[in-house]
């Protein structure tokens, strides 16, 4: 089973040279640390920045420079600042190549739920609904099961959804899977030490297993 850093490392391997990428809060933010340095990519922060740099040194901290998770950040050379309408024009207009975000549930149709637990949590959707409705390519970082062992890769989401038929690929603590255009999860890779059988048992939605499933290379 992968820990958060393992998931982030595996997702980092999906990144290609020249990509503009939006990273969600949580595990997706960690992905930035593992993108191979020879790749030239630009990270978008939906609060108005292209070209997120590393966290600042204590002496560089600027309260007027934060990411979407409200963390203090720096800018890379060649950055651009803009307002929130322009930021979502970029997202909605399909200019961002890859969106990586967290999920509480994903359905076998590619629906995603990650913004609300009725009666328990009312934080709001932030930019997630815009991102999932518009992104060309969406990778989800998530736990395969709840703490109680219930699958989060479902036939149908039980929580209020964030967007329909949008998730393309999932990297969980147990596996890498694609959401098939006709519905269903296609198993691509197993996490180190996790068996196909374990993944089967942890996946409520239709799971397609074809041939030998390799272990992830991290």
């Amino acid at each position: 089973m992968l820990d958060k850093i393992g998931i982030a490392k595996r997702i980092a391997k999906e990144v290609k040279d020249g990509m503009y990428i939006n990273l969600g809060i949580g595990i997706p933010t960690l992905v930035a640390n593992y993108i191979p340095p020879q790749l030239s990519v630009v990270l978008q922060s939906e609060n108005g920045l292209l070209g997120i740099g590393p966290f600042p040194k204590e002496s560089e901290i600027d309260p007027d420079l934060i990411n979407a998770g409200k963390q203090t950040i720096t800018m890379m050379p060649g950055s651009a600042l803009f307002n929130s309408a322009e930021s979502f024009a970029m997202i909605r207009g399909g200019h961002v190549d890859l969106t990586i975000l967290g999920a509480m549930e994903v359905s076998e149709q590619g629906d995603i739920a990650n913004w609300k637990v009725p009666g328990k949590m009312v934080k709001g959707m932030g930019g997630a609904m815009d991102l999932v409705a518009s992104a060309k390519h969406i990778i989800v970082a998530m736990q395969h099961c709840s703490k109680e062992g219930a699958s989060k890769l479902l036939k149908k989401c039980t929580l209020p959804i964030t967007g329909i038929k949008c998730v393309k690929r999932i990297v969980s603590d147990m596996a890498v899977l694609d959401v098939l255009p006709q519905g269903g999860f296609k198993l691509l890779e197993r996490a180190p030490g996790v068996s196909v059988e374990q993944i089967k048992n942890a996946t409520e939605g239709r799971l397609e297993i074809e041939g030998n499933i390799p272990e992830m290379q991290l």
Partner: protein
Amino acid sequence: MNKVVAGPDEAVADVFENATLMLGGFGLSGIPENCISAILKKGTKGLTCISNNAGVDDFGIGLLLKTRQVKKMISSYVGENAEFERQLLSGELEVELIPQGTLAERVRAGGAGIPAFFTPAGVGTEVATGKEVREFEGKKYLLEHWLRADFAIVKAWRGDTAGNLIYKGTARNFNPMMAAAGKITIAEVEELVPLGALDPNQIHTPGIYVQRIFQGKNYEKRIEQRTVSK
């Protein structure tokens, strides 16, 4: 054209009960700290606040929530605020949650005289309830309407006496769109400069949108997530 007022108290003097306010900022970055304090002091009740976030318990719009001056919040994300959550769950506070890009575009539409537009965000979700859905080139979109406000209250880095504004870093966020969408727009700036001191090519908010401007004081610029690299 001189739009300078003495300070926040004069700027918000006519903010009335049950007014609709837009307040710039993302998290605690780029929020109109001085005007929020002045409204707090004034004690105006029944406010509808349109703002991406709702501040934290003891700063930003959170201060106005504590004093129960806010009747309704229109936001995209309010997860930083325990008092907010309490008031919401107890039914003391009305809340309308809007996808962040839809919020930004609805405010922009308000300033730009566009009463409605189509956006894909929220199709198939509870956000779509009661909204017109239409398909364009094989993809579904929701019809969303403009947002405007009695008062738009924004914070900029530098501004001139005619109301031209330049923001700094990611503190720009919602401020420019809100500046255009207020019947009365109030700008507080860190540095108020004379006419001609700003490069016309670098203006983020042209002065035509701004009715009042003043140089704010004692900016706290509180940081929510202080993160540093080793």
